[in-house]
């Protein structure tokens, strides 16, 4: 059973690599859970394939989605990946919570190694395959629209980033079906993840999934930064850009500089594991402290990579649903830039306990508190944005309010952790787990969900159901407090993180409370799915084709919902910030252009899916030591890049008449629509045309 099967072909594969075989031989709850998880992946994978075949949707999928270079479609695909991965990571979080609640004074039902896989996959997925793809998808979709562009600067590169991310996510899914995942946590610290201590495939799955994700993000960063620098429409000066575009720019810059240290760290670890190098081993001159530095030189900026776009989202949401100018736009921009720079100067606070001198710890502790100032001040910008506004408590706005009040609590515990002597006591405990969830759930997840609700009508042309949105939102809020406030107590009581079982019965009530919270969080996700289902069924009534359901401010609201593939029939000329908002009040924003012109758009390209599938195959080959597959995948990638460079005929024309037809039919709808006052903007009366009052 544990002998390799055809090692030339299948590398390290043994029959025991399959969770189904393991469960057959040893049907414990633990193995059955693993087999069920693997089964769900296989069955749902097959179900999707069958469904597409039965509905005869393969060609449609290939030409409309998989090979499309349209930034909007790429953005949507990113978010689809993120939602699937969110579902998995949430289920894993619930399993961990249930295990800890049960395993007080007994071993529970999840075995230690399996528990370790759970926290490693949960953490890695939430960061690399939920938060990152979600925000990358939003940036992809929105930034070109907000700056008045037709696409990103490098559309092919954009598609390749998407497909590398998808390959990484697929690798995470494969680890459920074949083999086991790493037990080294999302940070993968050596020497624990070195070959001497973990010879299996787990750490290799982690290394390659994260490497694919980090490469994709580096390329995304370059793409977004260049897009914002070079592709703005006439008149869109930097200081006229919407705040979401600003935070996207900062995130892109952070990606460019912060992802490479991670890629280097995982690459060096791979050299250790595959070729017997000694970068981070105990023996022969290796030193894991280098890894800690490299990882957190990525890891701390990463926190801001995932939080800054949410800050941009909240800025748009709060100012839109207060019908008011954003307070202190300039100081928000300056604060965001300050954060982007400062975030590279604090990484050491993740290992105050490594034995460096007190002066070093003090310096990094103070730097950590300093970065809290521009971060914290932003909350006041949103508060003063609501001041003298007309605040509506729509779903995105509730997320924003919950964020402000919850995030500040996370900030407080962050300041506590910035004090080295206080960190010594709660480092590596559940206090830390509570702290970073207290930042990441309001700071990232709520922001992403607010964005999802806010921009969904723009992307799909109809509003999401408000009632189910609020139910879901309420569950995310209540669930968060119940699930994570007890962890502060447990951490202060000395309960280590990543603990599969505890012996202290005093922990039990808090673990129960956290388990109840985790269940409510699961309900929140279920409510999100119900909301989507209900909204799709009622899409006729909630149609907002005109495209401006919330009296929006930035350019994306000035086009139809969903926007035409070329975004703008004529590229806008702007002469001030939030030009569209003022145009609605001063001129006729829906007046047709004087003339229509031919528009050149990119043809589809199969190069990105080919590279994605090949890199998924190559890294899978590397994980399993199927060298032929690894080499084959690399050759395909190389060949695809070369072949693409010979393609001359990359563009196609949308004739002016076609542009005119699409644009005019939208303008007619605009003229027919009834403007909706703010009071009833969440009712079916909303046809996407805002009633303008100054």
């Amino acid at each position, binding site marked *: 059973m544990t002998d390799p099967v055809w090692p030339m072909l299948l590398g390290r594969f043994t029959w025991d690599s399959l969770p189904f075989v393991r469960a057959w031989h040893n049907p414990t709850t633990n193995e059955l859970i693993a087999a069920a998880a693997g089964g769900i992946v296989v069955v749902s994978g097959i179900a999707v394939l069958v469904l597409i075949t039965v509905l005869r949707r393969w060609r449609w999928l290939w030409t409309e989605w998989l090979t499309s270079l349209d930034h909007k479609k790429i953005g949507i695909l990113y978010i689809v990946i993120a939602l699937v991965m969110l579902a998995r990571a949430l289920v894993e979080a619930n399993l961990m919570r249930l295990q800890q609640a049960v395993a007080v004074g007994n071993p529970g039902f999840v075995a230690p190694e399996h528990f370790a896989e759970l926290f490693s996959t949960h953490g890695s997925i939430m960061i690399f395959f939920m938060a990152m793809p979600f925000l990358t998808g939003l940036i992809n979709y929105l930034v070109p629209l907000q700056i008045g562009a037709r696409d990103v600067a490098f559309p092919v590169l954009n598609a390749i980033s998407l497909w590398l991310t998808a390959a990484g996510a697929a690798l995470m899914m494969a680890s459920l079906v074949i083999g086991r995942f790493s037990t080294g946590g999302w940070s993968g610290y050596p020497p624990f993840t070195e070959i001497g201590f973990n010879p299996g495939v787990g750490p290799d799955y982690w290394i390659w999934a994260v490497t694919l994700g980090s490469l994709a993000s580096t390329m995304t960063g370059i793409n977004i930064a260049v897009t914002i620098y070079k592709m703005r429409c006439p008149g869109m000066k930097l200081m006229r850009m919407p705040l979401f575009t600003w935070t996207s720019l900062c995130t892109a810059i952070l990606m460019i500089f912060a992802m490479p240290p991670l890629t280097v760290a995982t690459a060096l670890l791979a050299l250790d594991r595959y070729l017997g190098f000694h970068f981070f081993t*105990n023996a022969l001159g290796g030193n894991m402290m280098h890894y800690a530095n490299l990882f957190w030189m990525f890891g701390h900026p990463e926190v801001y990579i995932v939080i800054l776009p949410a800050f941009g989202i909240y800025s748009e949401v709060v100012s839109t649903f207060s019908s008011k100018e954003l307070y202190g736009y300039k100081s928000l921009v300056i604060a965001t830039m300050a954060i982007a720079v400062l975030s590279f100067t604090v990484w050491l606070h993740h290992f105050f306990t490594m034995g460096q001198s007190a002066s070093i710890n003090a310096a990094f502790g103070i730097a950590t508190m300093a970065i809290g100032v521009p971060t914290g001040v932003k909350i006041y910008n949103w508060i003063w944005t609501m001041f003298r506004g007309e*605040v509506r408590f729509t779903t995105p706005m509730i997320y924003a309010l919950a964020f402000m009040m919850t995030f500040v609590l996370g900030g407080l515990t962050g300041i506590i952790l910035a*004090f080295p002597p206080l960190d010594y006591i709660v480092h590596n405990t559940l206090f830390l787990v509570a702290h970073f969830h207290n930042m990441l759930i309001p700071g990232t997840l709520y922001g992403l969900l607010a964005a999802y609700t806010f921009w969904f009508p723009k992307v799909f042309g109809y509003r999401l159901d408000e009632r189910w949105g609020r139910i879901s939102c309420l569950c995310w809020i209540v669930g968060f407090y119940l699930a994570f406030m007890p962890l502060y107590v447990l951490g202060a009581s000395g309960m*280590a993180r990543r603990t599969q079982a505890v*012996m202290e019965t005093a922990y039990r009530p*808090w673990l129960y409370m956290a388990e109840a919270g985790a269940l409510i969080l699961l309900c929140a996700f279920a409510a999100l799915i119900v909301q989507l289902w209900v909204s799709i069924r009622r899409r006729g009534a909630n149609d907002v084709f005109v495209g401006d359901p919330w009296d929006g401010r930035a350019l994306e609201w000035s086009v139809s919902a969903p926007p035409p593939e070329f975004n703008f029939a004529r590229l806008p000329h702007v002469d001030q910030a939030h030009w569209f908002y003022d145009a609605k009040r001063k001129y006729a924003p829906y007046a047709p252009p004087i003339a229509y012109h031919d528009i050149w758009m990119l043809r589809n390209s199969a190069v990105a899916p080919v590279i994605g599938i090949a890199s998924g195959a190559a890294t899978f080959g590397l994980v399993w030591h199927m060298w032929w597959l690894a080499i084959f995948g690399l050759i395909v990638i190389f060949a695809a890049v070369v072949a693409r460079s010979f393609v001359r005929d990359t563009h196609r024309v949308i004739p002016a008449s076609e542009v005119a037809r699409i644009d005019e039919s939208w303008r007619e709808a605009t003229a027919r629509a009834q403007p909706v006052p703010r009071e009833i903007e969440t009712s079916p009366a909303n046809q996407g045309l805002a009633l303008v009052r100054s």
Partner: protein
Amino acid sequence: MASLAALLLLLGGCGALDLGVMNHAGPVAADQWRLYKIVAVVLIFVAGPVLLLVPLIAYHYRLDNKDDAYRPNWGFSWSLEALIWLPPIAIVAGLGVLLCDATHQLDPYRALPSKQPPLEVQVVALDWKWLFIYPDDGIATVNQLAVPVGRPVHLSLTSGTVMQSLLIPQLAGQIYAMAGMRTQLNFAADRPGVYRGLNTQFNGAGFQHQKFSVVAMPDREYRHWLTLRAADGQPFDDNVLKSLMQKSVAQRPLFFSKVPPGLFEHMMMANMQKEEAIR
């Protein structure tokens, strides 16, 4: 009914905090707890305004309220700007001074002021147990660290395996133990008792069992304990070393006598020369 259940839950859970720094039993943890309280009080002033203003302003300026002002184009004020930037900067500057001072005061490497010389104990982190070596007495224990009350203790730590982190919540907090390197931790126990110590850095399947107890006893008893261990401890030889290096959980504390001098240095450097120990 539900609220009664919740109340019972809370009462039952209060015991948890007794396991932590709130129930400190030594000068280091006591200082840390005092620092917690100071920082917490300051932080109330940081969070308070946000927690009050967000609901108040959002509610007052709601769309339904027709009595309030509406200034859609107002978006900046220098005095407000000063009000939101200056206090946080001042608070962080003040906290910065406190932080710098406290970090030096509570530096784990700093010897505690005392008339007695510190007790030297060397700690080797193993999978999944802790080895404590008393070099001056030639004894060693697994998962039990006995210390005399009132006398400072100086730990030197290394790892015979992957990185680990030693925490004794009621006495002192945390320092990493890394192979080939020596880190240090100073602490003392003020009152007799048994305190929980643990590894907080995940290191494999036995991680959750890697706990040890710190037994603080009066000096006389401590000396008695030393003689007992020297008498009943198993002599520490190569076989013991080999079995300790195996991955295993120690069900109860183990005691060794006749510990060879230089064992700690040997274990610290052992990893450096050879390939990874466990294959």
